[in-house]
């Protein structure tokens, strides 16, 4: 289990990236949702032992990550938000090179593992091409493959679907679902759809704090009967909270959070995780429902 307690980090200029963050994560897929600048990447890097917090603690299976980052790193698979690749070295050779760096033996077994991961990430046909010449999606698949090297117990993926085409994205969903059976897969994303489809549990991080956390279905269920949709703006007196407005086939559609129907022409709709996400962004309490 991954236990995060009172984790804080402030950058120069009083930018508070993490603000006493508390989180417990058990095996399975866990989604971390939040807007840009909410502190997701800071949390990811801190978990991976790449950045030190100002205060707080992180324990993985009872071992303090901050005191002994190598204990975690031996069991960690990490995909950063953006990364490059050494030039001239082919994908397979680079994966094997990185496998050895991760502590795997330089053996035939490791080579088999590399080949399996290439197959898994659909890179077998490009195994000899240097990763530095890959397209964005292919490079992302390589990043996932390297993260999976060594069968890690904790998989931290920062925006893993960025740059993937729909087919690859689906493929990744399936892969991650399979992997999450016996390990923690921590998925950081601002694509709510990814989290809703993949993660049985999510946390929404806003301003460096967890503003909501729990089972995905439960977080959505708490909004039942409180989400309204219509094509006109209600009066300010209604007290309804605008969740989002979007054009759908040329017609502007508004979704509001309110205990009662905010205006004529609005109808109650089935809430989704995006509604909960926007509600948290607006800083509203669900109890108001």
């Amino acid at each position, binding site marked *: 289990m991954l236990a995060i307690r009172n984790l804080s980090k402030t950058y*120069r200029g009083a930018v508070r990236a993490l603000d006493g963050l508390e989180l417990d994560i058990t095996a399975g897929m866990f989604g971390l949702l939040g807007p840009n600048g909410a502190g997701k990447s800071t949390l990811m890097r801190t978990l991976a032992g790449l950045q030190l917090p100002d205060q707080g603690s992180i324990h993985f299976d009872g071992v303090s990550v901050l005191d002994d980052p190598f204990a975690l790193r031996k069991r960690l698979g990490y995909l950063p938000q953006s*990364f490059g690749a050494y030039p*001239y070295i082919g994908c397979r050779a680079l994966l094997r090179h*990185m496998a050895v760096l991760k502590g795997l033996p330089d053996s035939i077994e490791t080579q088999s593992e590399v080949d399996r991961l290439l197959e898994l990430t659909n890179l077998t046909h490009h195994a000899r091409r240097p990763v530095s010449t890959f397209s964005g999606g292919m490079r992302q698949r390589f990043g996932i493959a390297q993260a999976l090297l060594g069968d890690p117990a904790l998989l931290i993926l920062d925006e893993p679907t960025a740059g993937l085409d729909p087919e690859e994205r689906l493929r990744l969903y399936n892969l991650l679902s399979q992997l999450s059976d016996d390990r923690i897969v921590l998925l950081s994303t601002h694509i709510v759809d990814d989290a809703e489809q993949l993660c049985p549990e999510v946390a929404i991080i806003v301003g460096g704090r967890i503003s909501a956390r729990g089972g995905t279905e439960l977080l959505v269920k708490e909004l039942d009967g409180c989400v309204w949709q219509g094509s006109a703006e209600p009066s300010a007196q209604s007290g309804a909270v605008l969740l989002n407005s979007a054009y759908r086939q040329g017609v502007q559609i508004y979704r509001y959070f309110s205990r009662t129907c905010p205006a004529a022409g609005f109808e109650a709709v089935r809430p989704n995780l995006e509604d909960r996400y926007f509600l948290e962004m607006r800083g509203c309490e669900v109890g108001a429902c």
Partner: protein
Amino acid sequence: MLGRLKLGNEWRFLSRQPLVWLALAGAVIMSAVMAGGSPAPSGSTPAEALLRVNLFIPAFILPFLAAALGPTVFLREVEHDMSEIVGSYPMTVTHWLGVRLGSCLIVLVAACALAQLAMLATLASADPAAVPALTLQSLGWLLVIHAPACLIWSCLLARLSCATGHPGILYFAAGFGWVAYIALAMLTGTPLIGGSYVAWEPLRQALIIFDPYAITALVNPMPENGLLQSRAANIALGRIAWLAVCLWMLRGIIDLPARSRREEKAGKIENPDRSLLPDVVSRLPGWARHVGLHLRHVMRDRAFPLMVGGWLLLLGPEVYSGLSYAEPLAQVDPDSRDALNRVMWDIVPIAAALVLLYAADRVCRMYGAVRMHELVAATPYRSWLMVGVQILALWTVAVFFLALAGLAVVAAQLAAGSPIELWEYMLQLGLALPQLLLFGMLFAAVHALIRLRFAANLVNLLLVILGFTSLAPSLGFHHPLWRPLASPLAAPDHYWGFESSIAGYAPFLVFWSAVCLALVLLGMVLNHRGMAFRQMYWRSALRHPAIALVLTLAVGSAIQGRLIHVAFADEGLLVSPDERIAQRADYERNYGQWDAVAQPDVAAVRFQIDFHPSLRSAQLRASMTLVNRTKVPIEQVLVGRNQIPWDGDVRMGDAALVQADARLGQDIFRFQRAMQPGETRELSMAALFRQSGLVTASMPLVLRPTFSSLPAHALLPVIGFEREFTLRDPDLRRAQGLPERQLTPPSQLPPQSARLSADLANIETLITTEKSDHAIAPGELVSSWQANGRNHFLYRSEGAMRNLPAFYSVPWRPQTWKAGPIALEVHAPQRLSADDPNLRAMRDTLEWLGSEVAPYQSRTLRLIAVPEAGLSGYALPQTVLLSHRLAIRAYPTADAGFSQAYRRAAHETAHQWFGHMIGHGIPEEHGFLVESLTKYAELVIVERHEGGDAMQALVAYEWDRYRGARLDLAAPVAPLIDAEESEDMYSRATLVFACLRQQIGDEPILKALRAITSQGETTGRPVRSVDFVDALIEAANPMAEGTIRALLLDRAPLPVTLAKSGCNLNDPQFLAR
């Protein structure tokens, strides 16, 4: 342990990096080239040559390898944005360091070993039998020099990588390490490049131990007393000290994470918004703001303040420490010209080119580095403006660093209390700037044209290497245009300023400006705009209006290049060394049989010379009277070109040209009627010599407004076969398929049948020059007059004199002095005082040798001060040439003990006896009778007129020089009378004669000198060194024969010979230190 280093895994990565292979190949090629043009003095054994070339590995190759490989090994994650991924892997800092340090060390050591192999292969081809010994020696150097140097570089790279995470710092460190070590080597007399001297003895002493490469300890003599006497102990101590430094650096790396954590907590993280260029930038026009942006990118680089610091650190001490240096034990009163000359023409251009190379990468790849290239490429920002802004930014960097160089020199001058001349600064900095501006243009153009950043930088580096090193000539490309952006402009002196080279400055500048401008325009048209793809089709590019201008500039540069080429060809400067060697070999092959054919001698020469110094030309007409002094009729004469080739007219009276060999410059004339014994014939020649000024002036042929020298002795046609023009080097002879040359050493020469008269001739010269000039010729001045706006002078020798005529034209009026009955005529820019050391030395030598050995053979002796053109002192009959800087400007340092100027003037004057009276006529006798006996004269004259202490200081100086030149003092040597190495002929001879004087006194030596001089006069035959030895044995006490034989004929090492002869090097009576 090795398993933990995961070397296989590192190899998996490194073996796929082209840069690694390029670096290894570069090391091998550079080594082979260096070994091919071996820097060892001629006559060195293969082992000595191997050591000399091995020194180039740490000094010249390792810094480049460090720069090339450092970022790949230590900063690959940073460079390729993989820090986060690799940082999350379970590797401790110690483990990471072990892996990277191990691989860096192995690659560097492997590169050194490959370089050694290339050197070995090159050197061993000359002496295959020496391969096993050389291989063993190479292994030794690998362990003692290269492996520790690799460790030091690896640790330094690791330390800097971990401390800064910035490849630029590594490039800077490598460049600084390279230039700084060469500067140190120059200051400590380490023979890596020419012009090295011991400028600061304490520094040399310190480097004997603390030289990171141990080179100082390997090539310098060890102190004779004190703690540092053992070479091996010094080297071992130095290696241990550097190992400790390495451990300290590594310890620092291991501590770094904890320290950075502490600093992070203490809020010491760099403010990313810090700006070095304040708000001024925002008020500038658009293009200037772009320039400011690029400059900010350069200046905010962490390497920039280091570069500025390093630049000042490199130049300031170099200028300060050598400001007044003239030569060992002599100094000048320095002014701004001396100060600027210390750095402005060697260190500044190459260091500034390296700075610009780095700045070009920062400036031209700025958008790519911040990942904005795609955004910028998509804007309507014009390519020409993009390149133009980059060039302006680079020009600003060039001006900044040049100004900084000026400030460093000013600071050094202020510290030394030397007068500062603003005009000199403006002149030198102004002349140095264009080359740097052109480098900026060239680098920007290369970056604009070549998409791959690495390839562009590699091309730029190659341009710098070609421009500043002898790589192109080493590879067989001798044309001057193979040196990008180079011009002949050289340091000015106080005799004639920039006159030696300024004429060639503009033609080269025009050529390179046109080339650079064409490339810049091409770069503007074909600019990749930071993208990995071509931005324009060729056919569209060809329709671009700028292409017409590019073509015009290309044609213009081709025309200018052609003009330069033709000027070089006309002056015979495009003949490669290989071709010269082949010509000399063919000369021997085709004309060697003429050595046995009776040929006439030159009995008289009548010259008519017209100097036109302002036009850099001179007309030479000569009529040579040939006389048949043999006993047989001569039917054919071989008339060949001399050392300096020329095109002109050669005619022989009563003879027809039957064969003309234009390549080797040999003509065969057949007389209509055979030349009977005693009969004479006339040979006439006429040639116009003109110097374009495209090449820096160097003696002996110099035609410039302030100094013109026409060495007729190297220009006149040569009659018959001249053995001196054949190849001497055994390796070259073997390579050319020539048989081994049988050279008889002087100690085994039989009595000679040659006649001294063959070298003598009556010389008459009518010489004219411009009306502001004075012309000088051998012989006595008979009359002078003005006609047609020109000065005319008639010179005539009083009887036959040594046939080595040379003519001069200078704008100085002659200064006349007397030395007894002999007139001393001085030609120098300033008036000499009566007690000038040169005049005193000439008087003292004339008086002493004239009375003790033989009378001086003329009525006049001339001293001509010459500019800095590759000559310190030289003696021709009746004429002494002395460097203006060394003879007239320089004076002894406080600790000198003797005057170099006095010594040199005495030496050159003594050649009127040793060289021009005796010592000629036998080609093999050019060492002992000429140089070694002159060193004896030097010793006596210095002692008689400067005192015993001065003489002892001179002996100590020559002992130091001998120890510096001979690495192994215990090795056997050639008998002194046979020796051909300069350290033997000069330094060893000084010590030998000092010992002889101590043991037998001067009288027997003078008797022997008188005997051989009169022997030459009475027999008309040249004397030999063995004649001197015999005469000395006869003149000395019979008990001294063993000493004389030991000192002059023994092969034992010098210290042994001296000790055997009763001269103890530790005896202050013999060698005062």
